[in-house]
């Protein structure tokens, strides 16, 4: 009994390094995609609430397409289509394909989050800003965005955790992330024990980021 526990612990210790290396891919992919997604999401959200009819349609269609098709399909599509569109790339550029797919997808979800947050701000704030002579972009930058941040942080935190878990899809294009590595170890060592350290790693990531986002939310609600 004691012997087998010790054996298990020794096995787990041996997996930590390879799992951690693969986890870098998971973490990098999630963070980069969510950050690019936020930037893209801001512009798509602004397009959605703008007066320009065509712009509004384009941004609406973007969101419709990326939320309405499977993420896995978007991933496969970009992985196979990128080398065709850009001859310098091959299907070996797995990480790039994944970053682009996850960023584009995340931008669609975050655009809706950001739009909802902007529209939840009292229209009187924009009117006051306008009546003081601020331009639309000044009003957005100085008055509306700063107030929407505290409403943005919790849903973007959720989105981040979803993306972090969804990145496990990249094993389908043979990119070695935490999930793929876990499966590789599982099949060669023929033990389910590897899921334990792997799950703990996912939980550490989601736990740390949940804590970070909570701090951020409190920070941005300080003036209330």
């Amino acid at each position, binding site marked *: 009994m004691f012997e087998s526990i010790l054996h298990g612990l020794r096995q787990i210790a041996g997996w930590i390094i390879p799992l951690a290396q693969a986890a870098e891919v998971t973490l990098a992919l999630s963070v980069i995609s969510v950050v690019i997604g936020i930037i893209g999401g801001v512009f798509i959200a602004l397009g959605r609430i703008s007066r320009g009819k065509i712009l509004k349609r384009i941004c609406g269609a973007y969101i419709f397409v990326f939320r309405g098709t499977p993420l896995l399909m978007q991933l496969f599509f970009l992985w196979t289509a990128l080398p065709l569109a850009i001859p310098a790339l091959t299907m070996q550029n797995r990480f790039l394909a994944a970053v682009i797919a996850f960023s584009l997808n995340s931008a669609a979800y975050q655009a809706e989050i950001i739009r909802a947050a902007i529209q939840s701000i*009292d229209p*009187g*704030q924009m*009117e*006051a*800003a*306008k*009546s*003081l*002579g*601020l331009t639309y972009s*000044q009003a957005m930058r*100085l*008055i509306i965005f*700063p*107030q929407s941040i505290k409403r943005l942080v919790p849903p973007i935190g959720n989105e981040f955790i979803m993306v972090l878990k969804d990145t496990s899809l990249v094993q389908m294009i043979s990119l070695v992330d935490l999930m793929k590595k876990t499966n590789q170890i599982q099949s060669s060592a023929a033990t389910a024990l590897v899921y334990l350290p792997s799950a703990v790693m996912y939980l550490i990531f989601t736990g740390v980021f949940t804590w970070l986002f909570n701090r951020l939310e409190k920070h941005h609600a300080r*003036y*209330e």
Partner: protein
Amino acid sequence: MPLIETQNITKRFGELEVLKGISLTVQKGETICVIGPSGAGKSTFLRALNHLESITSGKIIIDGEVLDDRENGINKSILTKQQESDILLEMGMVFQRFNIFPHKTVLENVALAPEKVRKVSKADAEKRARDLLETVGLTDKTDVYPAKLSGGQLQRVAIARALAMDPKIMLFDEPTSALDPELVGEVLNVIRKLAQDGMTMLIVTHEIGFARDVADSIVFMADGLILEQAPPAEIFANPKNEKTKSFLQAVL
């Protein structure tokens, strides 16, 4: 030359005609109070002057410049965007619900627009903001966030914030109707002081006693029209229009 002149302004929201031809002039230094029943179009009129709504037809002339000259919503005025925003800056607006920026301190609320729009240096903007906050009696609140203030204090910040842009005209849309009764006085006193200092003001209000005190002229609006305009002594003692009569009977 009047500071504000409107000629036959109309405003439609879809099928609903809210302003049906408003012609009004406000001379420099004049205080005009606008009274009238709910839905008369009083707010819409003020908002149209400040371009928070665009009018359907008619003319708006501010300080001699034709800001709007519209027919079916299309503006024939030949101003550039820059000229237009310069003219709009001559009007400061105070809202019923204050619309103070909650994420900025009191001082930042007042100093923001001079700094960002007029490009005044931060130090100068803040110095001027402190002076203005002193005149509205809020010296001790400069570094406080708005959440800590009463409605009356918020509205005084809003007045200081509008004044910080050095407008020639102040527009007030029911500045005291969101306030608890005991806080109304402090705000009215600030406005009264502005009137004494010669500010040109257009004030929509339900405070009939205040209007009688402070106004050079009272405008009675109902159903999108100005039905009567006269000095307070005259309109309160001797209203000519039947609707004015019954409105005043109800509120006095």
